[in-house]
């Protein structure tokens, strides 16, 4: 009898402590992991498979001007993960002198992102050897498509056409390719993002968009004649409007680089495409998004749309005056 009472007493004392410890561990495991990642730098930003073994040497106590890091240069692109959703990046491109440079630096960015699939669609009759070779040499996971925008859709003498915005047919082809390649019922998680070849993307952007459930949005710099355009987010974390000057009453007053769509949604609504003709300037994005989602379903990213993670940069057209009529440089040298 006394033994049983002893045991009961011990159990009654030990039990609450074990409960406390298990509950503590449950809630503590997440911050613990965060702390481990933060050892190498800001873990939240650099999550694309790039931790560092960093040692910092300070040149002087007051003013750190020199930072030396012993860094591993990892295999690029990062190894494929079975857990992370794939980011399918659709980039329309066309031949012009800066094309190779633009695609090169874009590839240099993409090589840092895990589980990236680059769908590069050329505006050409045939796939050009320049792009074919470039894609092959990067080592990225890619799909190379092409469709030529018919000449009657382009203004005579000028490839910039106000009637159909550039890249529309190419983006639509990529959407069609996705729908033909991926089954709506298979559970391969994926995100679709439209990335133009002259914009600038931070690595953090790709990690933000990976958690998209339907359509996620964020601010874009240098669009609409402003420092940045951004969705308006209320206290409940929902998008209720657009902070733009140019026609803020568009259904989706957002730039192509400002949103990402979950692949499941793309496959679930197979009729949703960018409208080809009769689209007013600035309404291109709306022509697709309104078939996919309502304002209420939008997920704001980038700290509730307060951080700039993508810039709508444009590259100057190089002045090639010294080439003259016949061309001064050897046309066989690829640029």
């Amino acid at each position, binding site marked *: 009898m006394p033994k049983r*009472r002893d045991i009961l007493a011990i159990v009654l004392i030990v039990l609450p*402590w074990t409960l406390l410890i298990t509950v*503590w561990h449950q809630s503590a495991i997440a911050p613990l*992991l965060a702390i481990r990642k933060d050892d190498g730098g*800001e873990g939240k930003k650099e999550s694309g498979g790039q931790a560092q073994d960093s040692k910092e040497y300070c040149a002087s106590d007051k003013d750190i001007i*020199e930072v030396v890091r012993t860094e591993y240069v990892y295999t690029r692109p990062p*190894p494929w993960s079975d857990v992370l959703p794939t980011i399918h990046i659709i980039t329309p491109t066309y031949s012009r002198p800066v094309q190779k440079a633009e695609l090169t630096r874009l590839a240099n960015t993409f090589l840092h992102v895990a589980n990236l699939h680059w769908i590069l669609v050329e505006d050409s009759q045939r796939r050009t050897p320049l792009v074919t070779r470039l894609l092959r040499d990067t080592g990225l996971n890619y799909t190379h498509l092409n469709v030529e925008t018919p000449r009657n859709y382009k203004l005579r003498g000028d490839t910039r056409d106000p009637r159909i915005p550039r890249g529309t047919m190419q983006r639509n082809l990529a959407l069609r390719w996705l729908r033909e390649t991926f089954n709506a019922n298979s559970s391969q998680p994926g995100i679709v993002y439209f990335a133009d070849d002259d914009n600038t993307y931070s690595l953090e952007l790709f990690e933000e968009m990976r958690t998209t459930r339907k359509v996620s949005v964020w601010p874009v710099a240098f669009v609409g004649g*402003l420092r940045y355009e951004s969705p308006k987010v209320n206290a409940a974390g929902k998008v209720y409007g657009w902070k733009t000057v140019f026609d803020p009453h568009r259904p989706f007053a957002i730039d192509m680089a400002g949103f990402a769509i979950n692949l499941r949604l793309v496959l679930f609504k197979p009729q949703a495409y960018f409208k080809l003709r009769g689209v007013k300037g600035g309404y291109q994005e709306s022509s697709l998004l309104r078939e996919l989602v309502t304002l209420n379903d939008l997920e704001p990213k980038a700290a509730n749309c307060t951080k700039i993670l993508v810039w709508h940069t444009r590259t100057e057209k190089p002045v090639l005056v010294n*080439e003259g009529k016949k061309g001064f440089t050897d046309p066989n040298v*690829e640029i």
Partner: protein
Amino acid sequence: MATGMRLKLKTVFVLYFMVSLMGLVYALMQLGQRCDCTEHDLPKDRTISRLRGELHRLEEQMKKVEATKSPHQAPKSTPPTIFVITPTYSRFVQKAELTRLSQTFLHVPQLHWVLVEDSPHKTPLVAGLLADSGLAYTHLHTATPKERKLQDGDPSWLKPRGAEQRNEGLRWLREDRRAPQGADSQQGVVYFADDDNTYSIQLFQEMRGTQRVSVWPVGLVGGMRYERPVVEGGKVVRFHTGWRPSRPFPLDMAGFAVSLKAVLANQDACFDGNAPMGFLESSFLQGVVTMEELEPRADNCSKVLVWHTRTEKPKMKREEALQAQGLGSDNAVEV
């Protein structure tokens, strides 16, 4: 029996006291750590921690791959460091340019970025970007005197830019740099990289073996598709350029790299900010090398591995209009 029980109870109470004390100490230790307290949504936390664990696992996997690779390489000497000197100045696209530049540099092992701001003091934008970049860097600054600065509206070719900043980078290399001990302290290559150009990763492989000054073609410069040195018999005999070919070194800043040894041996060689347009490169190279000593790279100067791209100034009409009304976009948001 009673004494037996009493003794038992005392040990139980002592045990209870010790366990509570340990628990308290543990809790106090947890308080001292950083905690990810932004979201109290437990299932979301679990997926986040699961994904973080997955990323960590991938990083460990990559580290293992690197570790198994390294026994095959000669572990004795690290490759010579490439010191990239980049002058930069504050303007709208600065953060975007530096972001995509850092994404390229992250692919190059043993690279040390010397970023020199044209500013009387260091800006938090650049300091923050460098700290987050993951690169080994040195953050310097020096302000261009007013009379040498381009005014708003001056064409870009009016005055040579970045001379003072590049000289400051050279000064740091010569005077301030804490070089590692040993014969390797003079090993290195110095490259002047502007923040709006486009660099391929192969370029850095080509320049690493520079003994004195190596040269290669540059795309989209000098009013032509590319400019390049003409190589015959493995030596540079003249330069293929459409603009002022009679310059001592009709090269672009991006078209050459200098060995650290040559920089340290010729302490007086620097950029002349008062040089006439196009002679900035020559003003420096004249003090370091002769044309016969130039080392041609990039397959005897037949491949373009770097492009002199320029980024358009973003149109800010609406921003300016809004700011006149006092409704400009939030300046707290860094663009």
